[in-house]
């Protein structure tokens, strides 16, 4: 009774806080929590997405997903996108951010603008433009490369299963470069100028400043940037749809396009929403696991960096 009274009193006391929280909670439950829970439920049914699911199949969908080489191929490709984002894009953007953070660099705002432009460019347009640019028959990239003698013959960048994945990885890197750059630039702004001035007075070289001041002071924010980059890189659906649609021979298939094929592709006479949900759940769990695996390491780095 007392506890309830206390709870009621606390709610009454913080009623405005709860009221302000309500929109977010309602939206979160309606558009995030509910779809997640529902997809778990649907994954246990052989369901085509219409009417209530009735054909219970237990773990059959999960078993089919886990035993599907096509799913693991898509998973591997999705993971490669993350690997490139974390292993290549993050360090490269950090390098550019450090350069562009230098107040002595003339026109740095212009460079920032140019690097950020791909982020705000529509992916469908990016897909079309790259398809034209990389066309093996007359595309200007091949024309230049063969013209200057770098290539003996045109490369089928998006049409060969040997080069398609690498090509879309590069396009994805180019498109996402600006946003990670902005994260790093924001992080660099948090380092007080006094520290750099002190280092300068002490005679530190640029390399020493980078190694002993910039990088250590960026680590706490870097963990957040890492997680953001990792999460956003796991879903290159729009880029793949706009360039290769997962082909050729599923060389660029990612989990999102795999799921789309089973749930929404008009070529599928009978959509398999239940199966698609199971694929989504398995992928979600794997992503969660990969994210959690990073946590202890990141936590150690974070605690060390923040003293």
């Amino acid at each position, binding site marked *: 009774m007392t506890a309830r009274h206390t709870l009621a009193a606390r709610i009454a006391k913080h009623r405005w806080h709860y009221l302000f929280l309500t929109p977010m909670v309602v939206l979160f439950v309606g558009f995030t929590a509910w779809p997640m829970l529902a997809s778990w439920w649907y994954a246990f049914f052989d369901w085509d997405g219409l009417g209530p699911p009735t054909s219970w199949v237990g773990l059959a969908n999960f078993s089919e997903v886990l035993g599907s080489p096509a799913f693991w191929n898509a998973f591997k490709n999705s993971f490669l996108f993350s690997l490139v984002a974390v292993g290549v894009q993050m360090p490269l953007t950090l390098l550019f951010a450090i350069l562009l953070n230098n107040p002595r660099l003339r026109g740095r705002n212009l460079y920032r603008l140019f690097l950020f432009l791909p982020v705000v460019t529509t992916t469908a347009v990016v897909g079309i433009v790259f398809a034209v640019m990389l066309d093996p028959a007359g595309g200007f990239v091949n024309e230049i490369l063969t013209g200057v003698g770098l290539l003996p013959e045109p490369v089928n960048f998006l049409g060969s299963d040997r080069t398609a994945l690498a090509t879309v990885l590069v396009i994805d890197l180019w498109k996402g470069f600006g946003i990670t750059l902005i994260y790093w630039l924001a992080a660099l702004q948090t380092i007080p100028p006094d520290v750099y001035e002190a280092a300068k007075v002490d005679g530190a070289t640029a390399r020493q400043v980078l190694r002993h001041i910039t990088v250590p002071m960026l680590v706490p924010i870097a963990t957040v940037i890492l997680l953001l980059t990792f999460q956003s890189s796991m879903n290159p659906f729009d880029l793949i749809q706009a360039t290769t649609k997962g*082909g050729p021979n599923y060389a660029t298939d990612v989990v999102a396009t795999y799921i789309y094929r089973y749930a929404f592709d008009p070529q599928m006479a009978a959509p398999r929403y239940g199966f698609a949900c199971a694929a989504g759940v398995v992928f979600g769990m794997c992503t969660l696991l990969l994210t959690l695996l990073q946590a202890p390491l990141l936590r150690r780095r974070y605690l060390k960096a923040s003293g």
Partner: protein
Amino acid sequence: MSDRPLSRRALLRGLGAGAALGAAASVSSCSLVGSPRPASKESSGKVRLTIAIVPDPSGASEFYRRQFDRFTQKTGITVNVVENPTEQQLNAVELMFQQNNPPDVFRCQGPDALDRFSSRGWTAALDEYATSSGIPARFPEDALLPRTSGLHRNGKLMSLPLVSGQWSSGGFLVYNKGLLAKGGFTRPPETSEEYEAYARTITAKGGGKFFGAALSSARPSDVNALQAQAGPYSIGSGIDLRTGKVAFSDSSLVDQVELIRRMQSAKIFQPGWESWDGARVFTEFAKERVAFYIGGGWHVNEIKKLNPSLDFGVATVPIPASGRGSYYGQGSAFAPLWSMSAKTKHPDEAWKLMDFLVSEEFQKAYFDMFRTFTAMEGTWREARDLSGPEKGIIAAFDASIRRAPSPSTDGGPGVQRLMADKSAKPDLAHGDSSLLAITRNRDFAPMAKELDVKLDAFLEQDIAKISATELKVSRADLTYSDWDPLQNWKPAA
């Protein structure tokens, strides 16, 4: 009213309360979308129908609007158009039904789509309306027979067509006369051997500027097009309907994959097709980069729009040098397109709209605008303004398409279910394997054998599964021993 100025805290409270109420209302409204929509009678008493269409081909939005305005002038019935992107149409209309807000009439294109909608009881039976309006007389004799029309489900007329049956059943070779001449040829290739030889010569002469041939898209339909001229068309989907046996290993299929694989490995095709969408091939053709390719009916008008001065023609798809082994199989009189909702509040008015969509006026206007051969043959077959390529399409279709059996159309409910189950398994089609063979230069025959084993096992398993229900199906339902692929097929009475 108080004169006290609004404090910052009070303002924030107000905004917070408003946002909370707004969000809650917007989310809770999700549960309201399932409530029946209000009757669509306007305040003036006139009926307002909703039709769900796709804005395809280009210019269709304006065309439909003009046509529906004419319909309104004649009938007083207003038409509200809901447009969905082609790829999203089925999902969008399904959602409209689920939310109890279905369109009165909707575009439900293709047999699979009609299966999906009719099996859920969402399409209205049109038999009585059609008979009283004299619809059968508008089409060739026997075209609306329930077993072979392609528009019936469970013996009921569930759809009306937009295009002719041939238009949706076959393709043809589109060729550039100038590029053929550059290769030293005065006519298009007539056999698959010529197809390869001509293409090889022209590609060599093009030196990377133009090519002898191109494949139709990233998932090319060329293999099946060539296969249908060499052997029974059903082998393209893995079953020889003459025997009811699996047949991916049949030479009529294996030979065509090998032909394309050989040409691909010799770099004869225009490169890059592996990532092309369906529109790219005719765009490249219009740019005079390809001498010939196997295309579909709607390509011709698009080519003319892109390059009005291009001198090109249309011919039949090449056949084997040993002679024609079969034809494109036309499994039904028509492909379904327009359906009327079983839940419409205004069935009589909705029927008037359906009737309008298969009227001579509409079908003629559609042909005039898009040059698509519509379901009413009289609107285009004898048209005075037919272009050379259009005459070529008519000749090519007449020469290369024959009526053929199709269990999905003329079979019983059990075999229809079996076919639907099969088409829901993309790994039981040869598309992935043949593409792998072509792009990686691998031998297709072992892959075909593997596919045969898989399909055979699936058929046995699914037949047993379906037979355990109230439906009945057996291998005999896949066997049409009376079918001669070189003749028009008609089901026994």
